[in-house]
């Protein structure tokens, strides 16, 4: 596993929104490299561009200028369905509000992405069960999201995000809706996945607890990178 392998590269990426006749510059010429095994956080005040940057990296949003490569493939000019395919194969999302599919059980939520990928049922089942067990959700496999606590739901969301073995996981404020105990446990879990399995994480967060545990901190302000600091192991 080469720690230096670049999984995502951004070159002068800008994103301008039009709100009525007003142009909002969410990102201004961001250049950034995410390497395999990174456990990075994007920090900055509200409106600094953290979520937009995550969305652009994950192919949910497309930049108005600049170029992006994910696993060596340029994604900036991909069609909607190509982008969907890219997200399916290479990206894992974790949302602030969990956003599990309400009508599917925990197990089915974890299986969902693998199913879209066409992984056979037996393999899906084995991998999902193993992941849920690893994340401490044994016995809750058949519960629907509404029957799980916030922390449990977010762990299912993490399991869903990593189940299909993406090259990068993008949690957007994952601890914002959790109490400090559940948030801490979730972070420990993700850190363990990062260290043991080499899963790459890029967070956006306001939470000092997240920043504390990160090995790389990218500070954003007004859509620009103010600082990019790597911490020793």
């Amino acid at each position, binding site marked *: 596993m080469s720690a230096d392998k670049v999984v995502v590269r951004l070159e002068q990426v800008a994103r301008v929104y039009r709100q009525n006749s007003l142009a909002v510059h969410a990102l201004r010429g961001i250049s950034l490299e995410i390497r395999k095994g990174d456990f990075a956080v994007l920090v900055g005040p509200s409106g600094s561009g953290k979520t937009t940057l995550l969305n652009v990296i994950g192919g949910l949003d497309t930049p108005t200028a600049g170029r992006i490569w994910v696993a060596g493939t340029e994604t900036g000019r991909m069609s909607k369905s190509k982008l969907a395919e890219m997200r399916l194969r290479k990206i894992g999302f974790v949302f602030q509000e969990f956003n599990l*599919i309400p009508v599917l059980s925990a197990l089915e939520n974890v299986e969902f992405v693998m*199913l*879209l990928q066409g992984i056979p049922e037996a393999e899906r089942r084995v991998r999902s069960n193993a992941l849920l067990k690893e994340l401490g959700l044994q016995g809750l496999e*058949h519960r629907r999201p509404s029957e799980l606590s916030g922390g449990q739901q977010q762990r299912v969301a993490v399991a869903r995000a990593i189940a299909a073995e993406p090259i990068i996981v993008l949690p957007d404020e994952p601890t914002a809706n959790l109490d400090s105990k559940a948030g801490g446990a979730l972070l420990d879990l993700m850190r363990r996945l990062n260290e043991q399995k080499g899963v790459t994480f890029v967070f956006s967060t306001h939470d000092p607890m997240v920043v504390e545990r990160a090995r790389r901190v990218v500070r954003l302000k007004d859509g620009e990178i103010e600082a990019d600091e790597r911490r020793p192991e």
Partner: protein
Amino acid sequence: MLLGLAWRNVLRNRRRTAITVSSIAIGLAAMTFLWGFIDGMNRQMIVNTTRFFAGDVQVHLKGYHDDPTLDLTIPESGAVLRAVRGDPAVAAASVRMEGKALASRGDKSRGVVVAGVAPQEEAKVTVLFEAVVEGGPLRADETGILLGEKLAEALGIHAGEELVLVGQAYDGSVASGRYPVRGVFRTKIDELDGYLAVMSLDAVREFFAAPGGATAIALRLRDRSEIAPVRARLATSMGERYEVLGWPTLLPMVAVSVRFHEVVTYVVLLMFLVVVAAAVANPVLMAVLERTREFGIMLAVGTSRGRLLRLVLQEAVLLGLAGLAAGNALGLGLTAYFGRAGIDLGAFEAGLRTMPGLSDFIYPVVRADRSLILSAIVLATACIAALYPAVNAARLEPVEAIRGRARARASAGHGAAASTRWPVFVLIAARNILRNRRRTAIMVGGAAFSVLAFVFVFGFFDGFFDGMVENSTRYLTGHVQLERAGFRKDLAPELALDKPAELLTRLRSVPNVAAAAPRVQAQALASSATKSEGIVLIGIDPLPERSVTFIHRTIVQGKALDPGADREIVIGRKLAERLRVRLGEKVVVMAQAADGELGTAAYRVSGIFATESSTFDSAIAYVTLPAAQSLLALGARVSTVNIRLGDRAALERTMEDLRRLAAAPGLVLAPWQELLPQLDEMVRFNRVVSDIILAVFLLVVATAIMNTVFMAVAERTREFGVLMALGTPPGAIRRMVVYETIVLMTLASLLGYGIGIALVEYFGRQGIDLSGFFQGYAAIPGLTGIVYPKVLVATTIPPGVALLIASVLVSLYPAAKAARLDPVAAIRHA
């Protein structure tokens, strides 16, 4: 303040407002249009049939309508005319002298009604002269006669040629005269085209030897809806001696059709209302569920529950009013447009041709009173539909509500491990349906009701017409009649079938032929000691006849004909009344025999029958086959063979078999549709009407379903965003929405068909008693007061399938919208 808040809420969620308003508007517009269409059709029927000859009101001497005879001639018509013209509601009045006669030309003759009119006065009341298609109209100063087109055809006569009229004069002497045919008219009304001969009033008075006499005064009113008060006034002013009759009594066939359309319209409008209610309830319910948190905050800051209730109701009223405005604009606009342009039903011409008074173009009518009623009912429906969610909103617990949980939210239940043999999106779709049970209940309920309504209404139609066809064919014709070509035109005795025994054996061997009976049929004159009436004389072989028709079961006095009773006759009750004969008395029958001589025979009345049809009861008499054969000098020959099928639905196939077996030059097989054309036309015409209703209904239901799917998509915007973020391809999102609709509609169809078929089966056994609606209308052969609905696969399945297909098609649009969502915006969607 509260109203202002309600108004802003309505404006805030424009999509939801648009969906609700459009649901109300399209429902209301459809109802407005449909009612206008039926009103237009009825008005056209009434106008066309009354204006050709009947007029709006007629005045006779009492009893004339039931028994039109010269004995009931008004002696002082001038005074009566002055009296009716004095009524302010009467626009015009025309004096008429009517009587019966035999019209002959060469060897052809026909019984006719001779009507004498004063051409100038008559033209102010009716437009018969405008219907002249050959020759010219009548002039007061010349002798001459106008004939109906069918009558002219039957006599083989044209304008410019002469015919002979023979009849009985007022004084009992024989009346006769030779008259030139001035013109031929075509009204498309059988009673007029086939039997009416019109001359100048003076000529007819002279013919019947009744100078100054009149039998009827026909009136045109300034406003046709004023019939009841005019009748009442005239009845009072003219006293006991006279009868004042409105068009519904004069034209019962038209009245019963109008009544039937009205009954169907009420039923259909009721169904529309339920569908519109479901279509409105859904978005209002969604609007409340969606704003659970907002209502929680309002309750938390001290809004009273009563105020919250009023807020939600006021929103519904505002939405309802907007829907009324849009619906009335659309509905009245459409109705008014087609009211001018007309709706071309030329494609269904076969169905319209002999429906009395209808032409290819129907002009819908805009009526303010109808719109007011509909608007009030639709607004009330919208408010009632909003009541449940409004009460729910007012009962929210503030703390729970602020957390975004409605108290009554359906619990999810433990999902068993998904069977992954199902595509996951079908699974998600199915579970989504269970997730929001109220929405599902409303949508499935609404759609199921639509299917149920279709099944029931079509079952009702099918049962109604099936009953009519069955009764009619059972009274007289059977299902198929074998005859010589041209026989039915005149019932000419010389057009008889040779070797009937052989024919019968062959016909009876055809599969699906349940029974076949030989008959003699001829036009004849039946006379008692005091009166004569034109009849159709039917000679039957009593035993085989019983398995083809059930006339023997309609005997109300005496007994049915037995084999060998060759000196006996069975007549209809009305005919007995007209001839003033009783059981055991003699009737003399005269008819032209096959050899051209006049056959005469006397029979003793051994039975009197009564069907529900006055046409049968007043014009038909039965004798035995040998008696009729002897009267008409037929030897062993018969006029027709009438066949009853085991299964009427297999008519087409059996006709082919019959043609193969009984084909001979000059022989034809006539199915019941040809034997009873009026009935066939009525059945077909009402099929057209029900198809139109179906189409409009389908449009409303499809709109309601599309709106519901839109609401379901809007509600789950964020979920779709997440699915997209996870890499779900847009196609899969589209499919999921469509699957959901299919699952819902399948549920609805099963439910609707289940209940609908059960209802039809139940009422099919019990019968639905409509005799109250049709009281006094006995003109349509086979029309009975009790309807037995019936499920016919051919008419029941298509509406359900059409609804399913339409729902899937309309769900494609919201599905495509869902698939095109911007994932970032969708995930942020509150």
